[in-house]
């Protein structure tokens, strides 16, 4: 965790002026650029600026109060009650109530909610489930359960995206989403007056803009971290913030578990780590990386072609389809995996990301950090393979993870960092435990 924390804040010392360090300044415009959609789940940069969850993670991944001030469970974690923070308003002035919180939570997960019942009781929100939910407070801190207003004070659906977060939407013009400070934010006004979020910007353009001072915060994916270091850029990075994994469809040609096990044994993680990701990730054959679970070493990560051949035996499969949920580097990684699989007799064809379903899919899944049981819970939910809640006992967690991996429907490959390159005028930019930048707590040195 020290490693995680130590470099999760931008290396601002390089940019310090000769004068003493001061309190953060208020004011100014923070210019941020991103390749993806600002509202995408998970990881859309605008989501955490505009919306809050009932709970939140601190920098070390511990669950802290958010829109809920306290919570308790009974009936062996089948029922949870979260008491809402009083006097919190959405950006349009609507008071946060248990009624609109319930509506927002229900809308967030639609039919895939981890609870069976959700209801408003006074100033509290009550969750009930048939299965125990020991990790619900941590789950609610995730990107999936941020509260967007769905019922206005007049009972109608409001226009726009109203949340309770530090920034509110002011407009979207020419690819720039403008967010302005929420003066009445329950956590206090953010330091910057405005965040200009330029979206769908290629990495090349982002880095160019940073170098000429047109951007303050840009993305630095794992495969470019080495280059960022060589260029002496200030970088804030959160190690082990994402899991690169191969999702295997257990319907169709890969219904036989022996074939899926053969695929797991055939993948060469070291070439992904060393060549594609430039040694900026960490090989992982476990869903939770060693830094989170402490037992990751129990899952051997080395390629074993003999074992793969033996598992495959004489079984034949039709050509398999594979896609990757990302551009450039993920496509390269997918092609590398296709080569590995060809070596043991699988014929893999790459298809577009829009093609669904495929036999194989290369995915980046979020790792939330913090308590390992909650992180595993959230990871498997994101992969569409939710498991019954497991408490924080390491042996029970290992057993649950072993069982999940023995299905060979999700093959972990690498734990990857999330990182951002930061301009010299930005200070105190830290990344949360899931690697998202905490722009509300960042300030500008040259703010008026």
């Amino acid at each position, binding site marked *: *965790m*020290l*490693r*995680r*924390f130590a470099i999760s*804040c931008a290396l601002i010392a390089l940019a*310090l*002026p*000769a*004068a*003493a*360090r*001061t*309190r*953060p*300044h*208020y*004011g100014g415009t923070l210019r941020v650029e991103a390749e993806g959609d600002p509202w995408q789940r998970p990881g859309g940069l605008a989501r955490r600026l505009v919306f809050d969850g009932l709970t939140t993670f*601190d*920098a*070390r*991944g*511990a669950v*802290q109060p958010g829109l809920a001030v306290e919570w308790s469970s009974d009936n062996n974690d089948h029922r949870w009650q979260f008491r809402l923070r009083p*006097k919190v308003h959405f950006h349009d002035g609507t008071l946060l109530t248990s009624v609109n919180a319930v509506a927002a939570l229900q809308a967030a997960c639609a039919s895939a909610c981890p609870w069976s019942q959700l209801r408003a009781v006074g100033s509290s929100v009550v969750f009930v489930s048939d299965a125990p939910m020991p990790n619900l407070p941590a789950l609610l801190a995730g990107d999936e359960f941020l509260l967007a207003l769905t019922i206005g004070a007049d009972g109608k659906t409001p226009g726009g995206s109203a949340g309770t977060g*530090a920034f509110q939407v002011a407009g979207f013009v020419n690819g720039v989403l403008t967010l302005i400070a929420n*003066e*009445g*934010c329950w*956590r*206090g*006004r*953010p*330091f910057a007056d405005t965040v200009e979020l330029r979206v769908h910007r290629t990495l090349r353009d982002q880095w160019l803009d940073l170098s000429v001072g047109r951007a303050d915060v840009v993305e630095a994916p794992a495969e470019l971290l080495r280059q960022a270091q060589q260029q002496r850029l200030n970088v804030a990075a959160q190690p082990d913030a994402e899991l690169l994994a191969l999702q295997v469809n257990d319907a169709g040609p890969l219904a036989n578990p022996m074939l899926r096990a053969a695929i797991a044994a055939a993948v060469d993680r070291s070439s992904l780590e060393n060549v594609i990701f430039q040694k900026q990730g960490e090989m992982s054959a476990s869903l939770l990386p*060693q*830094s*989170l*679970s*402490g*037992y990751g*070493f*129990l899952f051997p990560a080395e390629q074993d072609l003999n074992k793969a051949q033996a598992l495959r035996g004489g079984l034949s499969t039709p050509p398999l389809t594979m896609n990757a949920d990302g551009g450039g580097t993920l496509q390269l990684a997918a092609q590398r995996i296709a080569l590995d699989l060809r070596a043991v007799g699988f014929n893999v064809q790459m298809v577009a990301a829009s093609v669904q379903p495929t036999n194989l899919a290369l995915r980046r899944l979020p790792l939330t950090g913090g308590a*390992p049981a909650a992180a595993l819970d959230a990871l498997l939910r994101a992969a569409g393979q939710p498991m019954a809640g497991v408490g924080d006992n*390491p*042996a029970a967690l*290992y057993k649950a993870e072993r069982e999940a991996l023995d299905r060979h429907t999700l093959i972990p490959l690498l734990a990857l960092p999330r990182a951002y390159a930061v301009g010299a005028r930005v200070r*105190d930019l830290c990344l949360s435990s899931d690697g998202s930048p905490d722009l*509300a*707590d960042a300030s500008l040195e040259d703010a008026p």
Partner: protein
Amino acid sequence: MPGGEPASSGAFPREQAVDTANDIIRANGKLRRKMMAMRLRHWVAVALVVCGAMVSRAAAVPNPWEQPAAALAEQIAALLGPGQARITLRNLSTVSNDDLPAIRKLLAQDLKARGVVVAGTESASTVRVTLSETGRERLWVAEVVEGSETQVAMVRVDRGATRPAQTAGSLLLRRQVVFTSAEQVLAALEEGAWLVIAEPDALVLYAKSGDGWSESRRLAFVERRGEARDPRGVIVTNGEGFEARAGAMRCEGRFGVDDAAGGWPAQCSESDDPWIWGPLIAPSEASTKLKAFFNAARNSFTGVVTPNLGVDLPPFYAAALVSRAAGNAALLLGGVDGKVQLAESGGLKNVSGTRDWGSDFAVVQSGCGAGVQVIASSSGAAASDSLRAYELPALEAVPASAPLAVEGSVTALWTAPDGKSVYVVVRGAGDRYEVDRVTALCD
């Protein structure tokens, strides 16, 4: 000297004195050997006593690995049953390799006590013990291999707390916890059996209760908008009571509860009036309180102060009145631009040696060294702040103490009413707030 006897120079010349002494030693060789033997016995006895004391002291200090070794051995024994097993140990954690033999020995002892004897390579069963860890805790894992079957046992081990050692300086800063809270603390003021705390949304009165404080009264502020993300506050004594500022709120009140007068005599309202920024420590005859206008939107002081000091001040975060060698007083300013300046003799002068300063400082009259020091927060990372005392003999801040580490970030710092210590608010792990009193002691 041989024999440990001091040679008397007396009236002898130096060379002669040495020869004479040698003669005495030769003449008393038997006696000398006897004395040496006695001394040797004495030192052996002393050494044994010291060793005995060390051993008993070591025995009194619990071995941190005992409990986890026993717990892991119990799980291993439950998986293996009585018999022999080969044990391997590897370290993937920050446990010192020097500790491995002791851990191995503990495991072997605990296993033996449970019927599992550690054997050599000929054993059919193998126990692979790995000392691992996560960012939060240590994890000891045992893989119990019997034939083709592998079972796993695990125990958690606390990392234990370590505090960096403080290096010595001419002054020693001592920190004493006054109050801790899960709520955000902006400022605090202790007065006898009462403690007033300014929170972002309320002013709270605490009463002394045993070794701690219990909440007595709470005066909630009216709902406000536009609060800063790192709101600031101050509470100063004011006649028989206090004046508190918290963001745009101004409160006045008295310490204690007066039920006849309806509870706690205190009231709050929004105010643009200047803050009393103090108490400020000046030469005793000129002790005064400076008032400064606060810009709540920028969380800093505008630079407009009363009384007028005859010099235009820049916007600043912190100010303190310090006595100068010539006997006059000067205003030390921590500017919004990060510059630390002294306002004296109608001008502003830059102070060097303040690059390590944060935005908070306060003056303390320690009586040590120059008598008055400035205690400043550090400009380090927010999660690992520190405090350090400085003296200002001229226009340079000279460190007068070693840094005093605080477990978190300093969010406020002000001089205590007695002037001999400072109060500091520290935001620690999990957003817990702590009010400490820091005193500068002569080292």
